[in-house]
């Protein structure tokens, strides 16, 4: 049944509904693929074989009884290890949470379960979602299925690699500065950062609360939309959740029509620093959208030049506060509790032992930026830049329907290439960060290959207009897939069990 792993979620949904295949068979095929390739890819931190098969059996039993099931019932999914799932180890990529089994599930997990989605396991990520390569995971780096010597992006590199390695047709990510979109770009998959507040964050381990957003990942635009519809919507348990209907994302993906739409190319997110292969694929995609009847115009967002700087003050500042909860008292690691040390000493020792380098670096940076005497100069100034970037977006969206740019300046870089230079690593997020600062919605989808490695195309829509991402993305994907003979991952190397293991 190995051909099952190459099907999209929409195709699996149809076969499942017609009872041509069972949820157990679909789930088993993906579990087999994980067994076969994950030694080489290392997308998963935990595989819940028994739980996944039990969920699949429940779906099959419900279908046999003629129950009314949602479109994704019986379709497997890879869950980023930042979301709490009751009874399942949840580490957020950190030693400080190693072995922790949450006593409750995130709202998104509950919604997935209610929709009959089969959760295969938890995927690798940079520790506390801080990174662009998964090299900051305490549990080893994930390898990019396109080239096992290269990074899969981060922080959600595990979820993106699981898709590209055909270990799952669907995945969940979270995006604070690009952690869904950058991994999607470098693995040739699709990832969406919904409007801030569009998807509940209850049960999602917080990194930077004014920026974090959970979102859907898949290999096709339609699959991403189907998942988006399942996880989105208002949640009483999340005070930052938007109380409004979810935009019609599935209908938009099916419409896939850009005729008459105005598309703005962001002037500041191009040129110097963008590899020529990335720029070429981007220009080709623009040409396709133009040929499909969209109007393309250049738009300037001058303050985007300050986005990266603002982000690396705001996110560490919020992280330094959020990560204070890892205090060795209520859950997670505790070090040095021998009766002679104070709570404060135990806290400091535990955090020293439990946090990795990048997390320590950001806690120190954030604490510094928020400390007396520096607050106005750093955190305060960054918050003002946030206002200016939001104004740039508002102005741009007054004249165009969506904005576009390359998702990342480069294709996947070799593992180790930037791990000792934090500032160089931070530049990976230069095109994705403005979106989080303003809380708007964005998608990355494949635009083709540059020297054999995937290039991402980013689409940005105003808040609560997430449907436009899917409308434009699906139109572009249709034409590109026709040219390639299938979506880009069809061209991904077929891994075998010996590869790189």
């Amino acid at each position, binding site marked *: 049944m190995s051909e099952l792993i190459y099907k999209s979620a929409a195709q699996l949904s149809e076969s499942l509904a017609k009872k041509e295949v069972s949820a157990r068979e679909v789930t088993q095929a993906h579990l087999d693929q994980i067994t076969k390739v994950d030694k080489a890819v290392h997308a998963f931190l935990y595989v819940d074989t028994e739980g996944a098969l039990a969920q699949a059996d429940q779906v099959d039993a419900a279908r046999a009884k003629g129950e009314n099931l949602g479109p994704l019932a019986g379709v497997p999914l890879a869950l980023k290890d930042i979301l709490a799932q009751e009874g399942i180890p949840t580490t957020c990529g950190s030693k400080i949470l190693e072995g922790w089994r949450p006593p*409750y599930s995130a709202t998104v997990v509950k919604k997935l379960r209610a929709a009959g989605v089969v959760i295969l396991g938890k995927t690798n990520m940079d520790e506390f979602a801080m990174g662009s390569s998964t090299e900051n995971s305490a549990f080893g780096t994930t390898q990019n299925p396109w080239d096992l010597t290269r990074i899969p992006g981060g922080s959600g590199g595990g979820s993106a690699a699981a898709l590209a390695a055909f270990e799952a047709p669907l995945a969940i990510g979270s995006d604070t500065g690009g952690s869904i979109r950058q991994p999607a770009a470098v693995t040739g998959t699709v990832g969406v950062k919904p409007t801030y507040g569009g998807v509940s964050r209850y049960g999602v381990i917080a990194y930077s609360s004014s920026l974090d957003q959970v979102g859907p990942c898949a290999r096709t635009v339609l699959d991403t939309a189907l998942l988006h519809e399942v996880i989105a919507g208002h949640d009483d348990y999340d005070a930052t959740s938007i109380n409004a209907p979810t935009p019609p994302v599935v209908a938009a993906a099916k419409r896939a029509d850009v005729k008459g739409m105005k598309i703005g190319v962001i002037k500041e997110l191009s040129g110097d620093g963008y590899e020529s292969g990335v720029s070429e694929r981007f220009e080709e995609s623009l040409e396709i959208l133009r040929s499909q009847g969209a109007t393309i115009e250049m738009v300037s967002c001058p303050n985007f030049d300050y986005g990266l700087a603002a982000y690396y003050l705001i996110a560490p500042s919020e992280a330094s506060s959020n990560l204070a909860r890892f205090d060795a008292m209520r859950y997670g690691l505790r070090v040095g509790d021998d009766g002679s040390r104070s709570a404060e000493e135990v806290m400091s020792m535990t955090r020293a032992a439990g946090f990795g380098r990048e997390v320590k670096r950001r806690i120190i940076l954030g604490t510094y930026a928020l400390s007396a005497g520096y607050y106005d100069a750093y955190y305060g100034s960054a918050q003002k830049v946030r206002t200016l970037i939001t104004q740039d977006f508002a102005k741009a969206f007054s004249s165009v329907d969506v904005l576009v740019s390359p998702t990342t300046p480069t294709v996947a870089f070799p593992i180790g290439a930037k791990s000792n230079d934090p500032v160089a690593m931070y530049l990976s997020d230069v095109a994705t960060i403005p979106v989080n600062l303003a809380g708007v919605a964005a998608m990355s989808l494949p635009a083709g290959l540059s020297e054999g490695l995937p290039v991402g195309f980013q689409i940005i829509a105003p808040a609560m207009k997430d449907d436009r991402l899917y409308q434009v993305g699906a139109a572009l994907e249709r034409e590109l897939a026709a040219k390639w003979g299938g979506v880009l991952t069809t061209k991904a190397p077929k891994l075998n069990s010996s590869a790189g293991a």
Partner: protein
Amino acid sequence: MSRISNEEVARIAQLARLELSANEIAELAGELEAILGAVARVQEVAKSDVLPTSHPLALVNVVRPDVVRPSLTPESALSGAPASEEDRFRVPQILGEEA
């Protein structure tokens, strides 16, 4: 950009309850300086007439009805605790001996 001293990093680490070795402190002092050097440019455009944005949503006082609903049992709430005693989290001494 003023130099960031090892003492300054040590003081910040203490505020953050993060024990650092002398080596880590020296390394972080250098890195912090490089990162702050790269991000300080926010000050170029952060003029006094620009209002700060703390959050993308303009929400104020989100409330829900105060209704009793099922919650974690003491057992499950304590299930991940490093140490517990008599249905409570057991923590190291918080006050000094003299208290």
